């Protein structure tokens, strides 16, 4: 009898526990009196390293300014992943209204898939580029392998952590940085120099992650001797002393440019003013200053003095110097890296 009672008690306990869980799960959606009105929601997708700057600084700043202007509350549903991953999700139909991609190539892929009108981002301020950041190297504390520039990555025994060009925009920028630095050193035979440089680096790539941020996590977890990544992603931690490594600035490297796309098909007419205001806000001085504070370089050069941590690069270059992303993708990423370097490495 006693066991019967205890089993009934246990049954009640299970029921009670289940009920409590259900209540907890439903709580935010229960119509409790005195709760604030439902805010308007903007869905914003971005590439991996943007997460903190957008969620903590820029989007809340916009929400405040919108509230001041209209009295309405805005809430953001955001997702951050490798730029290629984000682009694929946008093509498959995620309901994003805006997306900040790591490179214009992904915007072009969206246009090819009919998600946005071709070249629509070019009509935005600065050709759609919201901010920039140079590609740098991160080495272990004290730089035990003596890595000072891209050519050092090709030395035998150096293990390179690199994001995966299939899903990561940063990885495509990194390929351009590795190729471009060599090509600019030997301007009379740029293609051969670039090929050799890429071959040297990629022979030593020991870990490939889906995004620049994931590559950094791999490096922090102890993989590899050197990481190729965005300056922005490591600047804050390097300043705070929490980066398990040191930043090395190559003499010549690319400044990545991050492109905003607006997905008109996901914007209801009533949301138009809100989205337009958000887009304008991203290029406002307030937002650009916030980006600078979070380690991005502003498209407005005057503001870049605002972050003393920015390192100097003797010979920075842009994708435009190599004919734009369409050409770089065709000739360098596909033509040289994929067709020649990866085949050579795979042997």
């Amino acid at each position: 009898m006693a066991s019967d009672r205890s089993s009934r008690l246990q049954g009640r306990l299970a029921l009670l526990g289940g009920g409590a869980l259900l209540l907890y799960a439903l709580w935010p959606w229960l119509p409790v009196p005195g709760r604030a009105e439902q805010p308007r929601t903007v869905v914003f997708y971005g590439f991996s390293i943007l997460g903190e700057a957008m969620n903590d600084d820029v989007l809340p700043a916009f929400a405040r300014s919108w509230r001041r202007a209209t009295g309405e509350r805005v809430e953001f549903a955001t997702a951050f992943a490798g730029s290629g991953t984000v682009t694929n999700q946008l093509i498959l139909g995620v309901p994003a209204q805006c997306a900040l991609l790591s490179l214009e190539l992904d915007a072009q892929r969206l246009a090819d898939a009919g998600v946005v009108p071709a070249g629509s981002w070019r009509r935005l301020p600065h050709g759609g580029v919201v901010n920039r950041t140079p590609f740098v190297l991160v080495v272990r504390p004290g730089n035990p392998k003596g890595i000072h520039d891209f050519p050092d990555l090709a030395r035998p025994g150096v293990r390179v952590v690199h994001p995966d060009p299939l899903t990561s925009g940063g990885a495509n920028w990194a390929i351009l940085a590795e190729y471009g630095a060599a090509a600019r050193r030997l301007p009379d035979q740029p293609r051969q120099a670039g090929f050799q440089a890429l071959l040297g680096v990629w022979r030593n790539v020991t870990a490939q992650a889906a995004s620049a941020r994931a590559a950094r996590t791999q490096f922090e977890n102890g993989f590899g001797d050197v990481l190729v990544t965005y300056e922005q992603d490591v600047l804050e931690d390097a300043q705070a002393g929490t980066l398990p490594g040191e930043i090395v600035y190559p003499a010549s490297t690319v400044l990545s440019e991050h492109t905003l796309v607006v997905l008109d098909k996901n914007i209801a007419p009533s949301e138009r003013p809100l989205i337009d205001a958000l887009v304008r806000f991203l290029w406002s001085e307030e937002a650009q200053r916030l980006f600078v504070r979070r380690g991005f370089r502003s498209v407005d050069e005057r503001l870049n003095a605002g972050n003393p941590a920015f390192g100097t690069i003797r010979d920075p270059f842009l994708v435009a110097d190599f004919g734009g992303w369409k050409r770089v993708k065709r000739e360098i990423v596909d033509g040289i890296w994929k067709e020649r370097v990866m085949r050579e490495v795979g042997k």
Partner: protein
Amino acid sequence: MRQRTGASIPVGILVLVLLPLILMPIAAVFVFAFRGGPAAFLKSLGSEDAQFALRFSLLIAFFTAAINAVLGTWAAYVLAKHRFPGERPLAIAINLPVAIPTVVVGTSLLLLWGPIGLFGKALAPLGLQPMFTPVGVLLAHLFVTFPYMLGAVKPLLDELEVTYEEAAYTLGAGKWQTFRWVILPALRGGLFSGTLLTFAHSLGEFGATVMVSGNLRLRTQTAPLYIFAQFEAGNVAQANAVAAVLAALSFAIFFFLLRYSGRKRA
């Protein structure tokens, strides 16, 4: 008869093997979750994203368990009570989700319901798009966990003596009355364990969810996706706080499952 003497050596070896394989990884989650102290743990857990992810996962698990409890019992009933051509292939097809990798489930759902898929194309003009919404996540979880209910209920139905049923019919009970008052009580144990298993599996589902959810924070990010995203972003403390809660919930569910099946045998 079980051997009582001389067990210490094989048992010791078994524990030694299990230690790094199973026990230590589980312990590591809790150790890392509480490394910053309980205050840091609660702070990680209290973030808006983490709270949403946990609630969303629980809700999806409740819905999945409720829907599949009905669907699975019904499927088990049909399969157990009717003899028809093609019965075997149908039974195999229904159990297929156990064998298919969950990532493949996610991909196939995207291919069917996504904007380029058969259903997706039909729904698009109506402005409906289930993928990358909570409905998409629910669809994936229903698919992946479908066989659990069936597996828990069907053996009981197969074993159930037809005489009870026949007796009920003879006494003038209708089909529904017989099901409600004769068959259902006999299935209680299976319903309970099947529902709990479905709930537990849904709570931890990752492979299919990651494909169909769009991973939107505060919208479609489940707790396992949150853990993965935070870990990838290097926020190990945040990831571990939620991981510890999920692990604790699974333990609780398992505890009830074991208690229940233990009692039944006793």
